[in-house]
């Protein structure tokens, strides 16, 4: 206050120099601040636009094929002979769906039970120990899961599981892909589920218990029910993750272009198709376009699952 008054009392227009200096710095400061905010906004716009750019790019690239053949035919035919100009995606779509569903069937129950145990039964320190382990698991490069699948899962299926069920299998199969995939999405789903169960209010649990419910009744009838949208969206996010996973699945799933008729037969999911063939036969424009369409299908499916799950989760949070 005191310094301010002093300054005011000085006659105006006399102190040019220092005023200018002050002004210069002031302008520079503001300019900087403005520049920085502009960059931030640009960054934000890029992030928001990215999915659209990706989607539109893929669409434009796949137009060539879409103009040549109907989308319905492409999606529901299993005739895949690129050299003859036949691009039926059904084999790959079915393989993808198989692998994803089986992976979810394996991972889902494991994750749900683990999450319930960790949040409802286990002591606090257990969760504290397990949490980083889950994070580490989630951070392992997928190629390592692939190698592990080849070394352990594939031979295990061909030598034990398939013969035990009276089937023949090389081990490179839908089942192998699903198991590897399940292991990969477990930490991912588990992390979300733990969060979901943690956000449930203690008072809800207390209400149920105070009515004379046992702990298990409380979990079964109240907590799981309350968390249900969250559980579904955790699975949904898991599905979108599984559907797009490429390298680890590609390594163990066999990659044969026939519709898989059982767990022990090889399959050929969409991401594997793209990864295996892109860059090989680009001299055929339609082939190039077909792979782009495959990418677009993948992109749309994953986006839809992601969006749906996130909407469900945000609804859950609103409800409290």
């Amino acid at each position: 206050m005191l310094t301010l008054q002093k300054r005011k009392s000085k006659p105006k227009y006399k102190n040019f120099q220092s005023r200018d200096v002050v002004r210069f710095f002031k302008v520079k400061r503001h300019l900087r601040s403005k520049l920085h905010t502009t960059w931030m906004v640009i960054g934000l716009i890029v992030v928001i636009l990215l999915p659209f750019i990706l989607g539109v790019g893929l669409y434009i690239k796949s137009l060539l094929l879409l103009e040549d053949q109907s989308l319905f035919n492409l999606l529901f035919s299993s005739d895949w002979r690129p050299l003859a100009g036949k691009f039926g995606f059904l084999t790959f779509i079915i393989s993808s769906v198989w692998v994803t569903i089986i992976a979810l069937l394996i991972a889902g129950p494991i994750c749900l039970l683990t999450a319930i145990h960790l949040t409802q039964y286990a002591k606090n320190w257990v969760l504290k120990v397990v949490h980083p382990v889950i994070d580490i698991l989630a951070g392992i490069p997928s190629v390592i899961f692939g190698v592990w699948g080849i070394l352990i899962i594939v031979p295990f299926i061909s030598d034990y599981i398939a013969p035990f069920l009276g089937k023949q299998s090389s081990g490179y199969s839908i089942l192998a892909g699903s198991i590897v995939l399940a292991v990969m999405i477990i930490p991912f789903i588990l992390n979300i589920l733990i969060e979901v169960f943690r956000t449930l209010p203690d008072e809800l649990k207390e209400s149920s218990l105070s009515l004379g419910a046992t702990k298990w009744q409380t979990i079964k009838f109240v907590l799981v029910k309350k968390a249900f949208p969250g559980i579904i969206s955790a699975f949904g996010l898991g599905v979108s993750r599984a559907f797009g996973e490429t390298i680890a699945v590609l390594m163990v799933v066999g990659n044969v272009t026939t519709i898989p008729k059982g767990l022990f037969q090889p399959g050929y999911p969409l991401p594997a198709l793209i990864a295996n063939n892109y860059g090989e036969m680009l001299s055929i424009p339609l082939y190039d376009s077909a792979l782009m369409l495959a990418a677009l299908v993948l992109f749309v499916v994953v986006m839809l699952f992601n969006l749906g799950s996130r909407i469900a989760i945000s609804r859950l949070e609103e409800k409290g």
Partner: protein
Amino acid sequence: MEENAKIRVNDLNLSIGKQKILKNINLEIPERKITIILGPSGCGKTTFLKTLNRLTDLYPEMHVTGSITIDNDDILHTHKDITLLRQKMGLLSQRPYPLPMNIYNNVAYGLRISGRKKRRFLDKRVEHYLKQANLWDEVKDRLKDPASALSIGQQQRLCLARGLAVDPDIILADEPTSALDPISSEAIEKKFVELKQQYTIVMVTHVLRQARRIADYVVFMYLGEVIEQGTAEEIFQNPQQEITKQYLKGAFN
């Protein structure tokens, strides 16, 4: 007074790590009366209420010693089934937490989990207790609606109905009106005065006026200790402790 004490608390201590939440609580809570536990926020009232129906079991970090005797049974060291013990006490929390199911099932829940599943019986009970909680007329046409669709005041009455449905002896209420509008609050208060014919009511509050309106017996707590206890008349007209006098004058708010 000593003759018909429903709940006796002796040397109750509760600590989390080194922090003592409840210190040497000694209390007698009379049967079929409204006992108000009064005190500023954070003095351990809610925690005390939770020890009464052993919800403290949920929090392994809480260390409880002493004894709480209900109907000649030391519930802290009992071999009886905890779930049965909890059924004897209906709990009403600060905010209503309806179970994630429809209105009907919220009330029927307590009966179902204890194995009574006959539809006719449940129908009758649900109606009876919804009437007891003054909610029946408002919800009788939409019993299948989710409970979360009710207003907060209605939800609180629903929680009361669901608590009564398991046929408790004791109602534990933790500031049950703090989230409610004045009209709903009054409805709950009135209900409590009616209910004390049949139930022993223990209610936590920091609303002095509410305590004056409905209390028969008052326990004043401060920083985890019971400072003073007695009939409403004794405490409100003639408090013995300096700290109680100050609180009653409103010095803490």
